[in-house]
Structure formats: structure tokens, C-alpha cells
């Protein structure tokens, strides 16, 4: 009896399905989504393994396919048809969105990403700052055969250490976009272009200039120079309200954002003492506590930052303990000022509750939150923030004083 079953098993299994062999697999490393008139322009950056594996090192390691469609999935099917490989999204690292799409809302993209079982949750979503995402995907940079994966490695390695980037995964983003009181900040990628040396007249047509630069950026000429003309970088950070893009932070503000989010990373704080002397420290421990009292429209933030002194130009004798405390006070003041400025910015310019005050209220003061939930957007700018910062310098480094 059992033998018969095993035989049936083997017979059944003499498969009847299409199987995608490894050779026909097109690994998509990055997806770019641009909004065009009636739909989306989808660009996929597909990996060419031969160039990387060494069989054919003259070929480019990636190639790009794009197509338009009214919905995202339609566009995806079109590029799947165009490419000679069967596109495989399981190793997708990065999705780049352009500003128009982000302003309209992230939800369609997140829906696409979540429903697709192949897309994994640890991808990064980037906004293309003043570029089209197609351009961002088409830049070849010298450090990694796959530029978009370099972006991903950069983001994942760096984000785990420095506080200069936002760190999140797909699920965090999803959680944030749909709940009031939980807004998010995404990294925004941009292209850093060197001005071309032989272009000194300033009234050149901008678009041609742009196109020329793109041509150079997306060819191997870019890689073969010691100082490449174009490079990818993340210097701006997109702020979202619900799922719509409302503004940007720059890279000093993102550090403050991460500090307020209680993220355990390295931060660089710097002060200018007596308008002349720079002192900087590296903070490696942050302990931020937010207390909300939504009924009274008050928020209290207590921030404790601990770090080591990294650079000192102020001629002060640091071997005396109270001198170090003076420095600490300077740092605390500066940080408090910066934090308040940032909070002000989010309340007035960029109206988004990126510090998740609403989320805190939801977790800790549920009944009060329930009352204000409906019009949180109007209440948030009127909130009264009180920030207390306490900077502690644990160590001043290897030497005490350089100056006499």
C-alpha cells in the first residue's frame, strides 16, 4: 500500500508547471516610480550577473527598462514583457519615488509593495529630490557594480550607526502613513553634480545641460574618473503628513529628529563658544522621554544625551571638572534651541507630527486621545512644547588640553 503511494507521488510530481530557470531570472535591484499625466512611469534596474560574476566584465552590470501604465501593476507587466528576463522582485532593495507621486500619496505604492508576496519588508523607500526617479536609477557610481544596491548598503550600514539618516523598514512606513499622529520621514536621494569645467556661460539652456550631465552620469565615463562627475547622495529628508509629501528636512535637522525619536545612534553636536571657537562632541547615548497632556495641549520633552568630546578649540583647561560642565551647559542650550526650532518648523512650515506625539498620546493617554483624534491636524500647531535637555560629556578623549 505504501509503495503504491510513493509511486503515485513520483508520477504526480513529473511536473506540469512553468519553471523559471536561473538563467532567465532578472533580479530587480531597484524600482523607480514617476508620475506622468495619466498613470505611472515605472523604471526597473535589472542586474546582469555575467558582468559581475566575471564572465563578461565589459558589459555593464545593470540595465534599465521602463514602461508606462495607468496603474502600477500594469506598468510592471509591461516592463516584464519588455525585458528578456523574467523579472524577479525578491531581491528588490530600493524603491525610488518622485516628488509628484509622493505629494499625491504613498498609499498606492505601499499597497503594491505589500500585496506582492515577493517583495521583502527590509527595502528602503526613497524620494527623489528634484529629480526624476528614472534619472536617479540611471546613475552609475564607481563603488559598487549595482548602484542602487550601493545605495541600499549605504543606507543600511550607515543608518545603523550614524544619526544622519532615517531608518525604517517597509512595515514601519505602512504603519505611519495611515494613522493620525504618526507621521514619517523618508530618506530622499539626489544626484550630486560637479559643474562641468568647460561650461562657463550661465545662460545655457538648463534642460540641455541637465541632459548632457545625465548622459555622462549614466555611462561608464562616470566610473572611469577618479572624481566622478555625478554621484548619488542622501542629503535631504522628505517629511510626510499622513501619506503625502509636505516638506523637507536637511541633514542637521534629521539628527535632531532622530534624537527626539530616541534612536540609538551616533550624533555630532557642535557649538560655537563666544562666537569664535568651535567645540564638537559625539553623542552615543540618547534617552528621550515624551510626556503628553493633550487635554491641556502641553507636551513635555526630557532629553538626556551622553557622549564624548571630540574636538575642542576653546582655550579652557579641561582638567578641571567644572570647566567640562560649562561646556555641557553650552551644548545643552544649543541643542535645546535647535530642537525648539525644529519643532517650530514642523508646526508652522511643514505641518506634520513627525515626532509621533499623537502616537504617544494614543499609547499612554488613550481616552484623551480619542477626543482629539479627529482634528489632530489643527491641534498640533497649537501645542505647547517644553524641552529640557541635559548633555553629559562622559569623557574628553585621550588628551586633556592641547593648548597651554
Amino acid at each position, binding site marked *: 500500500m505504501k509503495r503504491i503511494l*510513493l509511486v503515485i507521488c513520483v508520477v504526480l510530481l513529473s511536473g506540469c508547471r512553468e519553471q523559471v530557470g536561473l538563467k532567465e531570472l532578472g533580479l530587480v535591484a531597484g524600482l523607480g516610480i514617476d508620475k506622468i499625466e495619466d498613470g505611472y512611469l515605472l523604471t526597473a534596474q535589472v542586474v546582469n550577473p555575467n558582468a559581475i560574476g566575471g564572465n563578461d566584465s565589459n558589459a555593464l552590470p545593470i540595465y534599465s527598462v521602463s514602461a508606462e501604465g495607468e496603474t502600477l501593476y500594469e506598468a510592471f507587466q509591461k516592463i516584464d514583457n519588455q525585458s528578456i528576463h523574467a523579472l524577479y522582485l525578491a531581491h528588490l532593495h530600493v524603491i525610488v519615488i518622485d516628488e509628484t507621486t509622493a505629494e499625491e500619496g504613498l498609499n498606492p505604492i505601499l499597497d503594491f509593495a505589500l500585496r506582492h508576496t515577493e517583495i521583502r519588508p527590509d527595502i528602503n523607500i526613497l524620494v527623489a529630490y528634484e529629480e526624476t526617479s528614472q534619472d536617479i536609477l540611471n546613475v552609475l557610481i564607481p563603488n559598487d557594480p549595482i548602484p542602487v544596491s550601493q545605495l541600499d548598503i549605504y543606507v543600511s550600514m550607515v543608518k545603523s550607526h550614524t544619526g544622519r539618516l532615517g531608518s525604517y523598514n517597509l*512595515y514601519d512606513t505602512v504603519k505611519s502613513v495611515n494613522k493620525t499622529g504618526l507621521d514619517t520621514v523618508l530618506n530622499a536621494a539626489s544626484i550630486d553634480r560637479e559643474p562641468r569645467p568647460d561650461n562657463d556661460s550661465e545662460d545655457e539652456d538648463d534642460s540641455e545641460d541637465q541632459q548632457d550631465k545625465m548622459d555622462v552620469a549614466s555611462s561608464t565615463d562616470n566610473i572611469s574618473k577618479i572624481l566622478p562627475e555625478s554621484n548619488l547622495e542622501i542629503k535631504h529628508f522628505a517629511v510626510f503628513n499622513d501619506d503625502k509629501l509636505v516638506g523637507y528636512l536637511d541633514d542637521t535637522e534629521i539628527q535632531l529628529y532622530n534624537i527626539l525619536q530616541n534612536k540609538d545612534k551616533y550624533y555630532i553636536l557642535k557649538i560655537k563658544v563666544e562666537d569664535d571657537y568651535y567645540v564638537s562632541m559625539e553623542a552615543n547615548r540618547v534617552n528621550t522621554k515624551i510626556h503628553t497632556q493633550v487635554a491641556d495641549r502641553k507636551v513635555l520633552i526630557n532629553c538626556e544625551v551622553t557622549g564624548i568630546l571630540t574636538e575642542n578649540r576653546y582655550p579652557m583647561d579641561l582638567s578641571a571638572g567644572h570647566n567640562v560642565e560649562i561646556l555641557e551647559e553650552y551644548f545643552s542650550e544649543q541643542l535645546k534651541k535647535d530642537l525648539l526650532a525644529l519643532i517650530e518648523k514642523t508646526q508652522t512650515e511643514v505641518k506634520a507630527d513627525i515626532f509621533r506625539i499623537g502616537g504617544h498620546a494614543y499609547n499612554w493617554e*488613550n481616552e484623551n486621545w480619542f477626543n482629539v483624534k479627529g482634528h489632530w491636524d489643527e491641534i498640533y500647531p497649537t501645542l505647547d512644547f517644553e524641552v529640557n535637555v541635559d548633555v553629559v560629556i562622559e569623557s574628553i578623549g585621550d588628551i586633556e588640553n592641547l593648548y597651554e
Partner: protein
Amino acid sequence: MSTRRINLNQLTVLIILYLIGGTAIANVGKHSSQDIWVVILISSILGGGLLILYHRLSQLNEYKGLPEIFRACLGKGLGTWVIIIYASFFLLRIFLLATSLAEMAQLTLMYGESQKVILAVLLITVVYCSLYGINAIGRSAEIFFGVIILCLIPFFISVFSNGLFKYDNLIPIFAVGTIKIRQDIFRTFLFPFGELILFLMLFQFIPKKESHKILKRSCIALFIGTLIIVLIEVMNLALLGSDLVTNFKYPFYNAMQLATLRGLIDRLDPLAIIIIIISGYFKLVLYFYAGTITIQSLNKKFKYKWVLLIVALGIFFVAPYIEYDKTNFLVSTLPYKIMTFIELGIPILLWLISEVKNYQQTKKTQVI
């Protein structure tokens, strides 16, 4: 095997695997977003009460199997009808479980395969293993329990070492409202914990001299099983957040995708699949075995082998034609009233009858 026997350890492990099997696939308690784990805890306490009831029922009838209990308490005619009801109940559960396992495998692992082939292979495995009898099933359960624990450990290590655990996702408790929680408690009580009625069939295989330890062991098994389920659900919630847990079809699989041991093993997906398939398989094989014995008891001429084959073939061929609610089928296909009746109503009735009989018998022996 001519003698069918399980020992106490195997019974414990089977109960644990049985409990994990159902909940890992079906998203129980999903209406009560953050409070899934509270729901499971409370319904496990209620389930403990149910287990004691079942055990008492079995004990009063000298640990005979369910069909014998029916016949003894309700008489041959009515008893046979009740046996048929229970047999069809088991068959329906087998069908739902097999199709849901096949669908899960198709969605997550074998994207693009035909569902028939997946279902067929699953049924072949179950039939093959049931042909070896409950002895082999029990022993393999002991081994696979170890495998499942081994698969869970990297998950926990990875979550805590990568800092993925977000406590904020678990609070506030009871924000959803007690009505929904009460509903969910009732549903969870019926779905994983109410199905313990199947173990009434297995108590008869424990050697007589160890029968008095069954209650204690089953309660320990219930406790451990609940612990594991609650741990998994808490992990799901903490990693994904309550919205996603409510909306994902298989949240455990998605939560596992976030877990990684960088530098050692990059992706831990297969572990989730292994856990779900193995625990689901054990539930399925126990159902098969119990269902087959129930059907076999209707008529002495039915041979075990053939009943097994007919049930499997039946499920395979009928599968495409039965409509069921694909989003929540494991829990809600049968109206709750019927399930309450089968899992709660009839056993309580039988228990009362058995208590009365027992009382009368002890009175008789006292008089004599």
C-alpha cells in the same frame, strides 16, 4: 502495529503541536488588534475548563473512545447518528485545514504551482503517515517538537538582538473595546481550544496503569501550547504593529521576514514555513486518524486502509467545488451555533449522563 499505544510524553507533545498547528495558520482573534495575546490567554483558561470536562467525561467512561462513549450514553441508535455527525464534523475540519495549508504553501512558497498538486502531495503525506498507525505518529511528534523549538530559537534571538521588538505596539491594552474582545474570546475558545475534543479519541491508547496522570499532563500541555502561541503572537504584534497583523493573511510569515541574523544566515523565512507546515501537518494527521477510527467504528467491515484512502480521495476531488469564505474560513465557516453545540453542548450532555450512571453504579456497589 497490532497494539496501538501512546505514552504520556507523546500525548503531551501531540496536544502542544495540535494547538500550535491551528493558530499558526489561522489568524485567530484578529478583530482585537493589540489584544490578541490577552484574548488567547483568557480563552486558554476557559479551554482548560473544557479540557477538564472532556477528561472527566472520558474518565467516567473508562477512557474508551468517543464512538463507544456515544453508544454507551445515548444508546445504539441515537449514538450512531451522533457518531455520523461527529464524523462529518471531523471531515469538514480536515477539508478546511488541508485546503488552507495548501493555499498557504501556494502563496508563500510555491508561487505559481497549481493548488491541486500541492494538495495532492499533502494528502499523500498524511495518508502515508497514518498508515503507520498512532504509534509512529506519536514518536515522530516527539522528534518534531524538538525541531519546532529549534526553529523558534533563532527567531527570538534575532528579534532581540536586532532591536526589532517595539513595545509600543503592544499598548494600550483594551483600547479596542470589550465587546470585540468578548466576541473574539468566544471564537478563540471554540477554534483552537474547543477542538481538543479530538483527544478523547486518543486517551484510550494510553496504557491503563498511567491513566491517572492524563489530566495533569494534558493541562501541562495546554499551558505550554498556550505559552508558545502567546509568544508567537506577541512577537508578531511587536514586529508588525496591530494594523498589519489584522490585515496580513499569515502574519507569522511576514514577521519572520523581518528577522535576520546578519553574518550568519541572512534570511530566516524557511523556519516559519517549517513550523507552520509541521504543526499543521500534525493537526491534519490527527484529524485523519480520529476521523478514520470514528468512521471505522460505524461498521466492523470497514478496513482502516480503505477508509483512509477514500477520505483522502474524497477531499482531493471535492476540494475545487466547495465554496467557503476564503478570508476567515478556519474559524467561521460553520455557524458558531453549530460549533458550540458540537464542542460544548453534546459533551456537557454526555457528561451529565455519565455522572448519573457513575453515581448509580457506585450506589449499587455500596449497597452490595
